[in-house]
């Protein structure tokens, strides 16, 4: 069974750094792109970017480039999302998701349970 298990909720202050994780199991982690999705309180889903763990090829949505860093360690089947200096506006739930590509399209077939990040002033 494919599973993505994310690290637990975090409470931080503005200006602090943070790294959250997403550990995959039940499949060859290195061979599938992993995407990160932000959901601000009461809002919709926003695509942040993606990483291919095999070679760490990373693509960011322009609005998130420079704001976060996506990385992965294929030896422990884990992807990461990190901030060097959090802002109050980073308060959100962050999801990781596996991207599965068929012969016709790619889609997010398995999701982590989400990590709630709360940033206070």
């Amino acid at each position, binding site marked *: 069974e494919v599973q993505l298990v994310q690290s637990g909720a975090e409470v931080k202050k503005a200006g602090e750094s943070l790294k959250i994780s997403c550990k995959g199991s039940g499949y060859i982690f290195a061979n599938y792109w992993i995407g990160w999705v932000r959901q601000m309180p009461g809002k919709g889903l926003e695509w942040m970017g993606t990483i291919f763990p095999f070679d760490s090829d990373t693509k960011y949505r322009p609005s998130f480039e420079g704001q976060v860093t996506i990385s992965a360690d294929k030896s422990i089947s884990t992807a990461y999302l990190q901030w060097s200096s959090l802002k109050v506006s980073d308060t959100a739930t962050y999801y990781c998701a596996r991207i599965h590509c068929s012969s*016709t399209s790619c889609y997010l*077939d398995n*999701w982590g349970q989400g990590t709630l990040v709360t940033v206070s002033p």
Partner: protein
Amino acid sequence: QSALTQPASVSGSPGQSITISCTGTSGDVGGLSYVSWYQQHPGKAPKLIIYDVSTRPSGVSIRFSGSKSGNTASLTISGLQAEDEADYYCSSYTSSTILDYVFGTGTKVSVL
């Protein structure tokens, strides 16, 4: 790339059918078969319910069906049940080589 446009809310009585629209451009929704749909219950992670416009993953109820016409994709829920009350998001992307996804604005489905 702007969010895809969905109605904010759709409601129906148990047993009825409802349809949620998702409007984009020829660069995303209108392009080939890149549309997928996700169901999200309150406090839970999204769940894939439709991919390739109209394909259901294993285990997803046959009451969920998808279609597309031009730049608008649609999700139909037939035989509406209380458990279908959730938020629904469509998604697409412009190129499989870029994997730059865009989500719809989301639709709250209420079962009356």
